[in-house]
């Protein structure tokens, strides 16, 4: 649907998007995720036509649109500030695009009504934007873009101005709408939870480049770089030395002497050191010995109640610090307390090598 090939965008001597290639599939929900200032908005603006690339090409449905102005591209954007036209009613805001494209009035009216219906704003059709709540404005912005039937819908942090509860509802609503209409969404956010909730695929952007691209689950479970591991969710990142290999597994040692077994598939031959990422919730904590590939003992240094989960800060016998999450499943469950000595189990798959040298 969209094919970005080696696109670079510079502002003066600063490179905001750096030789980036990416293809967006028809009908998918692709999220550009990254910290503030990494170039997400710039990339989206390149797709919309508000910026022109210094190098590289952007293909939309096979057609080179790199240097077409925004009004010649069949993509539409939902702006972070919504950018609703303050002097036009909700109906006229939504109808604006159709009017610009000279869609005959009866057809336009029908499509506007349909779009308003879709975002449940039919009753507010004659209001002005300043008479709406934040969530309603957001939906007008969405309807205004969708009514044009763009090949791709671009959304730049569209939910960031909403409060937490409304935001969560809108996430689900947006996802639902995208699925129902089979639209292609390119969604920008710096919120990793939002990205995981909504996306089919996530592209983690870091300093104008794609750090990792993959399905939401894959990005979460198999981060491939330290940045990706750290940016999505929480991660224990351990610097290890490779001490031996044995077929499909390898032994690695953490600074203090703790030895772990990892799958050797991702460890390049000849690698001597590596960085291992462990998700806090993957560490099995128990008072009994566990049947896992890795097992070690640790003391609970601190326990923080978080509602559905408990956050535990552990220190192993060898002095390695880790944090773990355990579910607060029921009051009957084994309770952990500060100072307890526990067994920690880790499956082979839960040790992810994010860097090796």
């Amino acid at each position, binding site marked *: 649907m969209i094919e970005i090939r080696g696109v670079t965008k510079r502002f003066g001597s600063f490179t905001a998007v750096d030789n980036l290639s990416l293809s967006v599939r028809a009908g998918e929900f692709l999220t550009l995720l990254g910290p503030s200032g990494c170039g997400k908005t710039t990339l989206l603006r390149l797709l*919309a036509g508000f910026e022109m690339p210094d190098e590289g090409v952007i293909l939309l449905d096979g057609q080179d649109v790199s240097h077409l102005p*925004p009004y010649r591209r069949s993509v*539409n*954007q939902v702006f972070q500030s919504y950018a609703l*036209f*303050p002097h036009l009613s909700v109906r006229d805001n939504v109808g604006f695009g159709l009017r*610009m494209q000279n869609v005959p009035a009866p057809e336009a009216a029908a499509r506007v009504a349909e779009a308003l219906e879709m975002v449940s704003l039919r009753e507010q059709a004659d209001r002005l934007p300043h008479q709406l709540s934040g969530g309603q404005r957001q939906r007008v912005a969405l309807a205004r873009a969708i009514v044009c039937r763009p090949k791709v819908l671009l959304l730049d942090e569209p939910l960031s101005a909403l409060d937490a509860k409304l935001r969560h509802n809108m996430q689900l609503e947006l996802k639902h709408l995208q699925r129902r209409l089979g639209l292609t969404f390119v969604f920008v956010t710096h919120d990793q939870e939002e990205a995981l909730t909504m996306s089919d695929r996530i592209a983690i952007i870091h300093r104008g480049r794609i750090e990792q691209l993959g399905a939401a689950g894959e990005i979460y479970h198999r981060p491939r770089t330290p940045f990706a591991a750290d940016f999505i969710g929480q991660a224990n990142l351990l610097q290890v030395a490779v001490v031996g290999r044995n077929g499909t597994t390898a032994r690695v040692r953490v600074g203090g002497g703790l030895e772990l077994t990892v799958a050797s598939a991702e460890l390049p031959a000849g690698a001597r050191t590596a960085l291992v990422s462990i998700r806090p919730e993957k560490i099995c904590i128990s008072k009994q010995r566990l049947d896992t590939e890795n097992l070690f003992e640790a003391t609970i240094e601190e326990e923080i109640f978080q509602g559905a989960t408990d956050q535990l800060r552990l220190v192993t016998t060898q002095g390695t610090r880790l944090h773990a999450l355990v579910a607060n499943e029921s009051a009957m469950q084994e309770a952990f307390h500060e100072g307890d000595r526990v067994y920690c189990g880790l499956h082979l798959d839960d040790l992810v090598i994010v860097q090796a040298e």
Partner: protein
Amino acid sequence: MPASLSRPSIPSGLKLLNWFLSGWTALVFIFLYVPILVLVVYSFNSSRLNIVWESFTFDWYARLLNDGPLIRAAKNSLVIATVTTVLSVILGTGGAWLLHRYRYRAARGIQTLVAIPMVMPEILMGISLLILFATAGMNLGFTTVIIGHVTFCFPFVLVAVQARLQGLDPALEEAALDLGATPLQAFWRVIVPCLQPAIVAGALMAFTLSMDELIVTFFTRSAAATTLPIQVYGLARVGLNPMLNALSAIFIVATVAFVLFSDYLQKLGRR
């Protein structure tokens, strides 16, 4: 924008100050409006002298309407002010948008050059324009008066529009382009409506300035393009004339009506 946030009244502990301020406010209003009131009242006085009240009459109004040169001057003024306003709005709005939207190397310089006519003494402006027109071999007349007026009127529109543009979301234009509007369509259909209050304010300013301008007009007019202020000035030099009271009264009524009407329009627009 919320029309009226509730504001607290002055704390009661400050009664004395409050009294003083009320008195002061009353004085200011008396000072401003009593002369105007007196003027209107005396426009109905049959005596030629402004100091004694004789009897009620519409005579001065009748004479006013029969005074050919004065009526012609009033018509000239209206024509000049209207054309000046239209040109100032076009130049001021367009200029403000271009300065806001695009980057120019000389933007700062342009900004200063535009602001100068607003503060430059009118006499200087009159003389320099006269020299310019003479050098260019232009005959003085309506055109030269209008050029002169536009020179110092359009900066007021430009400044008002610029202030409004500062607060405008840059995404508005992008949203319009994104929805298929060309830059020109985006300007007409989105930017201009958003700037409308500033354009109206600037236009009013330009119209008023042009309407009562004396000095620049004096240097750039021809006999045929005599404006109302110049005609009135000529009459007043010969001695005060109650006809001028009548003229002023008409202008006051027109001004008040205009202000009320534009208020009403704004209220309509807000709904």
